[in-house]
């Protein structure tokens, strides 16, 4: 086991996988040790690029009592966060609910909070942090509790529908606002001049591009609001970084102490008493 732990620490996944196979083959392992070997091997398999097999192994280990079962549960939640974030967060929350004295509660609480914030559920993230005793920095609390800083995509779209570029300006993208206003103004002017001079072909071409740029500008405004919100979301998630507890790992076993040598029984004979004259 110390070698496996060392390989995991060094992130030598191929070495860890090979060593796990060797240990399983040669050693008569106790069930606890075998579960630990299987867990470390599943981590190595995931890192070597076979997440599905790793996930199946973690599912099997989930019911193992002790830290291995907890770590497997957290690994499954982590995998789900990458696939369906809300599902993964739900699993972290499930861990917190079902394991009141779990070894990795801090990690699960942190991951649940970050997962919610990453998906835009800021008020839920704040509630989650408070419920699990995660102390947020003032910056993070302010960001999570102040939705007024964010831009609504539909408002941006409506503004740009009224005046091209206005929505981009609302979403704090002045260069895009200028570009949208200029291009739309040019095509509108072209269309008006073509209609005035009865140049129907020119009107058709200008109309196609003009209408395209107009709707593109409306879409762009809503998209700019979303990009603005994502940038702020990333700031929020970064502000949570310093709170990250150390990543979960198998607890170090107390190394077995060498037994002290047993004292050799020495029979002490009483000192010879010389007879007094």
């Amino acid at each position: 086991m110390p070698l496996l732990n060392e390989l995991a620490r060094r992130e030598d996944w191929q070495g860890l996988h090979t060593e796990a196979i060797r240990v399983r083959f040669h050693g008569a392992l106790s069930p606890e040790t075998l579960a630990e070997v299987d867990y470390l091997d599943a981590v190595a398999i995931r890192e070597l690029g076979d997440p599905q097999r790793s996930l199946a192994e973690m599912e099997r280990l989930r019911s193992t009592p002790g830290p291995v079962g907890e770590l497997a549960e957290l690994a499954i939640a982590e995998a789900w966060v990458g696939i369906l974030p809300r599902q993964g967060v739900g699993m972290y929350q499930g861990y917190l609910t079902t394991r009141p004295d779990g070894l990795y509660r801090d990690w699960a609480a942190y991951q649940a909070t970050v997962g919610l914030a990453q998906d835009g559920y800021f008020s839920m993230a704040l509630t989650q942090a408070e419920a699990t005793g995660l102390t947020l920095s003032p910056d993070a609390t302010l960001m999570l509790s102040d939705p007024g800083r964010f831009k609504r995509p539909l408002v941006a779209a409506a503004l740009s529908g009224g005046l091209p570029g206005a929505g981009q300006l609302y979403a704090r993208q002045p260069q895009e606002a200028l570009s949208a206003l200029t291009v739309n103004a040019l095509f509108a002017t072209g269309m008006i001049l073509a209609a005035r001079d009865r140049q129907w072909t020119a009107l058709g071409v200008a109309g196609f591009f003009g209408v395209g740029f107009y709707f593109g500008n409306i879409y762009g405004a809503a998209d700019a609001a979303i990009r603005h919100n994502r940038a702020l979301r990333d700031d929020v998630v970064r502000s949570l970084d310093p709170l990250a507890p150390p990543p979960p790992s198998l607890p170090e076993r107390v190394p077995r102490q060498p037994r002290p040598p047993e004292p050799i029984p020495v029979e002490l004979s009483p000192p010879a008493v010389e007879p007094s004259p």
Partner: protein
Amino acid sequence: MLSLFLLTVTTAWAEPDPARMLRDDRVVTTGPVDATAQLGLVVWRELVSPGDGARCPLRPSCSGYSRQAVGRDGLIGGIVLTFDRLLRDSNPSAYPLAPDGLHFSDPLHSHMPAGELLLGGACRRSRADGADLCL
């Protein structure tokens, strides 16, 4: 006209070409109308654009992005996304650097489908689920 129709239909049901997938990030095969639009973009890309030189600072290129958009969102959504991209490519430094180090990265998957965004469907769903934001 017949050959154009046949070419369109062939494009529509053609198997994706791995070499093109590497270049375009994604190849789509859709109905005849969308395939016609894509054919126009291919003509632009292969015949017109080489004479004009590489002008698009973003990756995938504007015509590649447009092909992907038409494939994902249909003709109308693709047109909207294309014009949006043309408006945005004047400000490339707002995007992260592409792996080639020469262009900026603006993949289609970082933008919502046009219909979902303009009709508010995606935002309505996420807010109904309890999200504070539409991301």
